[in-house]
């Protein structure tokens, strides 16, 4: 996907003014947060399940190479071809090679964020093939000139029903519909045709099961089921971190994934795809490929933010992030928005271009408190900030300011004198109202808020005076 992370501030500024987006965000947030809260109450011991999920994911990451080999061996044994892609370009090349090898003309795709990393759809079209997104959200974005997704599980979350209605009428040449059911029916009718004519099914994978070599997929629309059973070739594209040792463990993760994501105890469809169609079997692809994508993941694994690889892409961190909820996913400027996006994006596309992301957080901790696999997201954002300081990526003013503060705060006598002066100046600036309306060096604050002026004396000087008075009496 095209990188726009460097425009974070400008974009966020625009999104804050976008009233329709604000309305749409508010609506979806209420649903996600409320439903999750209800769904986790169904579990006898939600916190213990989170601990278990964390350790399942961590155990894999601690020996990722071994688990990947086990997966590869078991997948091969069942007729699946396992391919490795080190870069986004390699992902696209593999897919196009497969298409050429089997003479494929039309890809039907269920949602895959990994394929967004390499802008796979564009590569497929550039090669003269057709590609159709079958996840309803992704389909809406595709027919809107490939608008980027704004959420990892609800890619078109930023759009209202009315916007979708207008878009469908324009693209499908139909009369505008008002009800969600009618809109879905229209999309279903359009997509049905594509399912029947597609010869290449492309999906992601929620998990890869090492013990069986299976691809594990969850959807609510059943589109992945169709994409993996109707076309003669199925290609699953996923990150190397997605492997899970056993089906048993995947089901533990599933209990948390769907509850954290949409507040469902389970999704409408769960597909477990194990190898190619066997002799005498009716369903399944004749050829199955799994493309294991690195694209920066092994770099994450070797870094201070490696815990981010435990992520099962539930989206809860963004649903509960007050920053995301105010600016929407497009502000972040790449595939993965919200707290997890701000942790992994700098690793995938570079700290320099994504420098704002780890800083655009109050570190309020809301994300970590809901993450089903207990990724300490605020700590990882802070690690990035440390890296940026180490790499000299912070603005000069900020660096000098911090250095001056530390220098001063290490010298109590000087500090006392400086703060006494400072609070007197600020009191004076506050005037009779006792508040400061504008501060040139902190306009970020005063553009939207007053600053309540201080009392004019520091605690330490008042306290010292009180002690002296106490001694005299």
């Amino acid at each position, binding site marked *: 996907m095209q990188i726009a992370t460097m425009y974070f501030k400008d974009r966020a500024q625009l999104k804050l003014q976008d009233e329709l987006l604000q309305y749409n965000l508010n609506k979806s947030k209420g649903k996600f947060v409320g439903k999750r809260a209800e769904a986790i109450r169904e579990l006898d011991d939600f916190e213990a399940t989170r601990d278990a999920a964390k350790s399942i994911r961590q155990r894999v990451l601690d020996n990722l190479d071994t688990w990947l080999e086990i997966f590869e061996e078991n997948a091969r044994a069942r007729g699946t071809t396992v391919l490795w892609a080190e870069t986004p370009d390699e992902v696209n090349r593999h897919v196009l090679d497969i298409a050429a090898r089997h003479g494929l003309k039309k890809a039907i795709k269920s949602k895959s964020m990994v394929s967004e990393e390499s802008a796979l759809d564009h590569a497929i079209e550039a090669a003269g093939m057709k590609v159709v997104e079958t996840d309803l959200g992704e389909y809406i974005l595709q027919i809107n000139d490939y608008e980027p997704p704004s959420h990892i599980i609800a890619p078109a979350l930023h759009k209202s029903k009315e916007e979708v209605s207008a878009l469908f009428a324009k693209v499908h040449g139909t009369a505008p519909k008002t009800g969600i059911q009618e809109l879905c029916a229209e999309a279903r009718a359009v997509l049905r045709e594509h399912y029947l004519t597609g010869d290449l099914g492309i999906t992601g994978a929620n998990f890869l099961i090492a013990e069986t070599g299976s691809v594990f997929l969850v959807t609510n629309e059943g589109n992945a089921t169709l994409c993996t059973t109707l076309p003669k070739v199925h290609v699953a594209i996923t990150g190397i971190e997605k492997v899970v040792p056993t089906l048993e463990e995947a089901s533990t993760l599933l209990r948390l994934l769907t509850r954290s994501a949409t507040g469902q105890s389970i999704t409408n469809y769960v597909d477990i795809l194990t190898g190619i169609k066997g002799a005498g079997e009716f369903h399944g692809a004749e050829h199955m490929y799994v493309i294991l994508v690195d694209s920066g993941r092994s770099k994450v694994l070797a870094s201070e933010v490696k815990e981010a690889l435990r992520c099962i892409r539930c989206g809860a961190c963004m649903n509960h992030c007050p920053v995301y909820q105010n600016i929407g996913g497009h502000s972040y400027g790449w595939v993965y928005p919200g707290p997890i996006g701000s942790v992994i994006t700098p690793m995938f596309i570079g700290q320099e271009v994504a420098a704002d992301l780890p800083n655009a957080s109050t570190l309020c*901790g809301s994300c970590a408190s809901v993450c089903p696999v207990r990724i300490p997201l605020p700590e990882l954002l802070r690690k990035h900030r440390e890296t940026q300081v180490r790499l000299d990526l912070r603005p000069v003013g900020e660096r000098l300011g911090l250095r001056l503060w530390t220098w001063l705060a290490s010298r109590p006598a000087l500090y006392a004198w400086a*703060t006494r002066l400072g609070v007197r100046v600020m009191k004076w600036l506050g005037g009779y109202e006792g508040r400061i309306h504008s501060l040139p060096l902190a306009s970020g604050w005063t553009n939207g808020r007053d600053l*309540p002026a201080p009392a004019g004396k520091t*605690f330490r000087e008042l306290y010292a005076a009180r002690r002296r008075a106490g001694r005299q009496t």
Partner: protein
Amino acid sequence: MKVGLLVTCLVDMMRPSIGFAALKLLETAGCGVLVPASQTCCGQPGYNSGDREGARRLAAKLVEEFEACDYLVAPSGSCSGMVKTHYPELFADDPSMLARVAALAAKTYELTDFLVKVVKLEAVPGRFAGTVTYHDSCSGLREMGVKAQPRALLAKVPGIKLSEMNEAETCCGFGGTFSIKFGDISSRMADKKCQNIEDSQADAVVLGDLGCMLNIEGRLRRRGNERTKVLHVAELLAGETDEGAS
């Protein structure tokens, strides 16, 4: 019992009354309070901005100043959280410092947590005729587990009524330097917080962190709200407010 009061740099400069209120509450509870004169800043601004070295220097200074006390108490979830949850991480690679830091972290408390759990304060000096709503500041809530403690203490104040706001646990948008670096996002978050506060119909919003107080008060006034008071929980409990009789 010797309690070291970490006044915090913000309180020292911006609202000394919170420091005196904390002092009064601790003394009411029978604690001997020590206020180390050389204390400055816990190092959190640097720590959250990625300046580990600067943060370590200030942290080491603070450990020196407070380790002789039986407890470290701060009228701030954010600064007590820094000492309790982040100092150990800062010195993870320095075994000799780590032991001292861990010992200090173990006896570090946010003020209301300390008053409820350790000294089990029965009665408070403050009075308040009116309705308050409580904002759960992030570090206090998620790092220090402060949620029921301030409410339990507020319930002891004669005349007070509590009216919970919607989304009391949602961040107010302060976030230290975030509030300046990303001022527009921060102001919007503050604005939503203010809306929830106003919807609660409370006469005052009460909270435990001065950074969030400045943010919320600054936004309330900019919105044209001159009515809703913004009080630190210590000020209210100690009766160090305009209407609180002491």
